[in-house]
Structure formats: structure tokens, C-alpha cells
């Protein structure tokens, strides 16, 4: 059987995940392979993440191609994450794809990582024009499509919500990634300890909350008046109520009829419950992106690359410089205008 369909290789390389995916131009995902760096202690050190990705990239790419029952010659397009992300890590990704593109003469497109999250959600969840809450270790963004761009209606003013939860978990002696462990602990408690609730317009701040939670853990009342589960419960309730309030306000402001929840923190059941509740109240369709596509992965990069390539063609090699601080509202979206 001869393959007529066009194939894209999507490579995600912005932070801890080196993700590769093979998909066709109609959006069918043929394979998805991730190799995620998990530090033994501490957080993500850009240099160590880079070393990890350099060691695993060839195996990961080969595995993705094999799982799709294809060979490297079947690939018609390479898409990669150009930013935002950790500089040294982005550089590794760009290096790999530039080499592949030039050696095999395959067109190359660079993609904004945050937009990838929204586009894969639109593809996989059957939503057309959602208000998106994108929550992960690196980003906390409320975004919707207006005036030909993915505009940012609200975002964190300091650290991302995932970063806050992971950092607290690490201080409390839990291993990275701490999010799922905090979620489990929180389910065991119903005791709320008041914590700072910081909302500025539609923007959020988590550093004060982080400090307060850390102080609770260090206080002499710890394990007397309350335990780790109680702190986990309180910090989740506070942080997620903030996120939900801001999302609800953005929903009322934009009048969108769909809500999309994505990013690594979207896996949290409590957050899902809260966002589903407000969507329902405003008669909006609510969708959470399945974890496979919500966390960092190659498919989201590949699919956004396909959309871009179909409209404006490939990038010149000079235009594939990485951009560690690339805001999503700086990107033009020709495929939606």
C-alpha cells in the first residue's frame, strides 16, 4: 500500500520533556513518545535537562517513527518548539531539527509552545473557539482568540501555579513532580487554613501563597495543630479558587461559549471540578484535554506546525532562531483569520 497522505514530525523541547510525535496532515496522531527528565533531587537545572535530551533524542525520534510504521523518508515536514522555554534546552531542540531538515531536505517550521497547547486541545476535544486556561509548571495563562491573535486576558505575575505546587512539595520533602502527590494528600483533609488570596484584575500571583504555605510547614504548630495534608488541601483550595475566579471573569468578559482546560496541572481532579462548575453556570461547553495531550508532547507542536505550514509555508533556516521569552500574543495566527 502506497502512502499518499503527508506526514509531520513534531518535536517538543522546551523544558523537562523531550517529546516526539508523528502525525498526518489531517490531524491523526500515529505515534507519540516522550522522554521526561526527572531530577533525583531539587528542580530542573537547565544544563542537566539539556544533557538528558542530548542523550535521548535519537532513540526517542527512532521509536516514534517505528511506532508509526514509517521510515524517516516518509516525513514531509518537521515542526519544533521555538519558544518559550529554557534557553539551553530550546537550543538542543533547534540544533537537532535544523540538522535533520538540512540533511534530509525536509521543510522546517517553528512553533510557539503555548499556542501548541491550545491548538491540540481544539483538535482533540472538538472545540472551535474556546477560552483556554493553560496551567502548567512553566505557565499560567487565560487566553482567547480576539483581534486575530491568541490574546492573554490573565496570567501569573510571578511564578506559574505548577511551579508553586512543585516547589512547595519539594520543600516538604516530596519528590519531583510534586503536583500529583499534593493532590493525593489534599484528598485526605477537610481542614482549611487561611492563606493569601491574590487576584489583581484578571492576573494572579502565587509567590505570597508559596511563602505562606512554606511558613506553615516550618512553623512549630506543624504536626500539632495541622499536618501536611491540611496544608496541601488549603493551598490547593486557595490557588484553584483564584484560577477559577479569574477564568470565570474572563468568560463573562469575552462571552465565549467553550472552555478548555489544558497543561500539566489540568490533570488535577479538584481543578477540573471547579472549572467544570463555572463553565456549566455560564452555559459554556467544558472540555479538559486528555493528559496525553495536555502535558508537553510532540503532537501539539506537530499539529500547530501543520496549520502554519499549510497557510504560510516553511520557515527559512535564519528564522529558526530560538526565542526563550516568546509571548503567545505576539504570534500572528494566519490559519484562523
Amino acid at each position, binding site marked *: 500500500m502506497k502512502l499518499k497522505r503527508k506526514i509531520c514530525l513534531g518535536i517538543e523541547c522546551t523544558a523537562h520533556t523531550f517529546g516526539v510525535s508523528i502525525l498526518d496532515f489531517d490531524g491523526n496522531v500515529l505515534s507519540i513518545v516522550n522522554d521526561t527528565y526527572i531530577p533525583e533531587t531539587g528542580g530542573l537545572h537547565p544544563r542537566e535537562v539539556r544533557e538528558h535530551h542530548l542523550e535521548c533524542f535519537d532513540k526517542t525520534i527512532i521509536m516514534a517513527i517505528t511506532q508509526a510504521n514509517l521510515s524517516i523518508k516518509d516525513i514531509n515536514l518537521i515542526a519544533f518548539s521555538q519558544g518559550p522555554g529554557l534557553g539551553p534546552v530550546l537550543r538542543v531542540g533547534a540544533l537537532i531539527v535544523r540538522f535533520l531538515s538540512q540533511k534530509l531536505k525536509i521543510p522546517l517550521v517553528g512553533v510557539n509552545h503555548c499556542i501548541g497547547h491550545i491548538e491540540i486541545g481544539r483538535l482533540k476535544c472538538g472545540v472551535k473557539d474556546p477560552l483556554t486556561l493553560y496551567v502548567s509548571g512553566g505557565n499560567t495563562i487565560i487566553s482567547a482568540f*480576539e483581534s486575530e491573535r491568541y490574546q492573554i486576558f490573565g496570567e501569573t505575575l510571578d511564578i506559574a501555579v505548577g511551579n508553586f505546587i512543585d516547589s512547595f512539595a519539594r520543600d516538604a520533602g516530596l519528590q519531583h513532580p510534586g503536583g500529583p502527590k499534593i493532590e493525593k494528600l489534599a484528598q485526605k483533609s477537610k481542614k*482549611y487554613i*487561611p492563606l493569601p488570596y491574590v487576584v*489583581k*484584575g484578571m492576573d494572579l500571583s502565587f509567590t505570597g501563597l508559596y511563602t505562606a504555605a512554606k511558613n506553615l510547614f516550618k512553623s512549630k504548630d506543624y504536626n500539632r495543630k495541622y499536618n501536611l495534608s491540611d496544608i496541601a488541601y488549603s493551598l490547593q483550595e486557595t490557588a484553584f*479558587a483564584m484560577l477559577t*475566579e479569574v477564568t470565570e471573569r474572563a468568560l463573562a*468578559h469575552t462571552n465565549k461559549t467553550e472552555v478548555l482546560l489544558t497543561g500539566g496541572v489540568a490533570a488535577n481532579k479538584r481543578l477540573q471540578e471547579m472549572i467544570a462548575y463555572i463553565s456549566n453556570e455560564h452555559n459554556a461547553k467544558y472540555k479538559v484535554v486528555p493528559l496525553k495531550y495536555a502535558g508537553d508532547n510532540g503532537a501539539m507542536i506537530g499539529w500547530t506546525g501543520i496549520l502554519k505550514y499549510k497557510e504560510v509555508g516553511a520557515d527559512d533556516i535564519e528564522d529558526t532562531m530560538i526565542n526563550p521569552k*516568546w*509571548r503567545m500574543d505576539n504570534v500572528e495566527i494566519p490559519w484562523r483569520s
Partner: protein
Amino acid sequence: MNYNPVIDLGRIIYKGAEATLYKGKWFDKEILVKHRIPKKYRIEELDKKLRRTRTIIEGKMLISIKKCNVPVPQVFEVDLNNNWIIMKYIKGQKLKDLIGKIDKSKRKWYFEQIGKYIAFMHKNDFIHGDLTTSNIIITKNKKIFFVDFGLSTKSTKTEDKSVDLHLIKRVLLSTHGQYFEECFESLINGYKLEYGSQSDEIIDRIETIEARGRYIEKNKRKN
């Protein structure tokens, strides 16, 4: 909901993110009741605290801001049993819905006025905290009203005043991109006219706040 003998709630006219608005009667006056409704997504303890504090803040702020000649609805009663604010009903349109329907000179005029009023508030150390085009109402005879003071604060800090301006700048950029330049320029003109030379520091600081944001590049975006 607790019973309040003097108020006829009337009918719901708007369901917002935070509150439900009723158009009703208070003695023989037409009133608007802003009811901060319980939010079941968050735990009761947090919900009660947030609703109560915001109702108190909004009530207090509306009253004190009115005293310094900024047009806001007059407050008749704050009912903390129900988390109600009972205020004068203002008939008009949200600026958000009006902005595309009027011509350029009108838009400029409105935003210059808005700039002046924001300067009024800031000169008296009132920070709105949630300046958006949904929170400004325009009446039929072209009067401008500011509403939604639930996140407002009192502050003398340049930083807080700049954040206020930054918030409305951001809303103009994201929601009304095509009118951004003319609207924001007029707003700043009005602000400067009213505030005088002291406003320079506040306006300059907007850039500092933006640069502090996530993923900001040095070269500023154009549109």
C-alpha cells in the same frame, strides 16, 4: 437569602462572574441590587470571607469615591446579611459594547473623560483594581459611570496607580485592538491634564510593570 422588608428585588437583569444584578424598588426609587452570590466551586469558608470583604470594600469605596466627584452609582444600603449592595439604577450601555459603534472623535472624547476621572480617583488615592471596558457604563445623555469596586483599595503608591492604568491598557489591547492607539492616547492625555506634572512618574512606570511581566521582549510590540 434573608428577608429584607424594604426591598423589592424585582427581576434579574444580569448575571455576572461575581454577582447577580436585580432591578427592583427601594421605597419608591428604582434601584439596582448587587448580590454577591455564593460560589459553590470554592469551599464555604473561603467563599463567605471573600464575598463579605468585597461587599464591605465596594460599599465603602462607592460612598467615598462619590464624595470626590467621580461618577459612581449612589449607595442606599449595604446589607451584609445577604451580601447585597443597594444602589441607584443607572440606565446605559457598557463601554465595551459601545466602543465599536461610535465614531473616532466620540471615542477620543470618552476616553479623555475616562482618563480625567481615573486621575480624580488616583489623586485622592483610590485605586479601582479592576478597570475594564465592562466596568464603565455610558448613559444616554453621555454620562460616564464607574462600577465594580470589589477589588479596589486605597493607596498612595505610584506602583498601585500604574497597575491600574496597566490593567485598562491590557484590556484595550486584548479586547479592542483596532482602537487601542486612539483610545489609550486619549485616556493618558485626559489623565495628564487632570493630574498635572505628578502623573509623569505614574505613566512612566507602566513600562516598568510591563517589562516585569512574563516573556517580555525589549522591543515593544506595535499594535
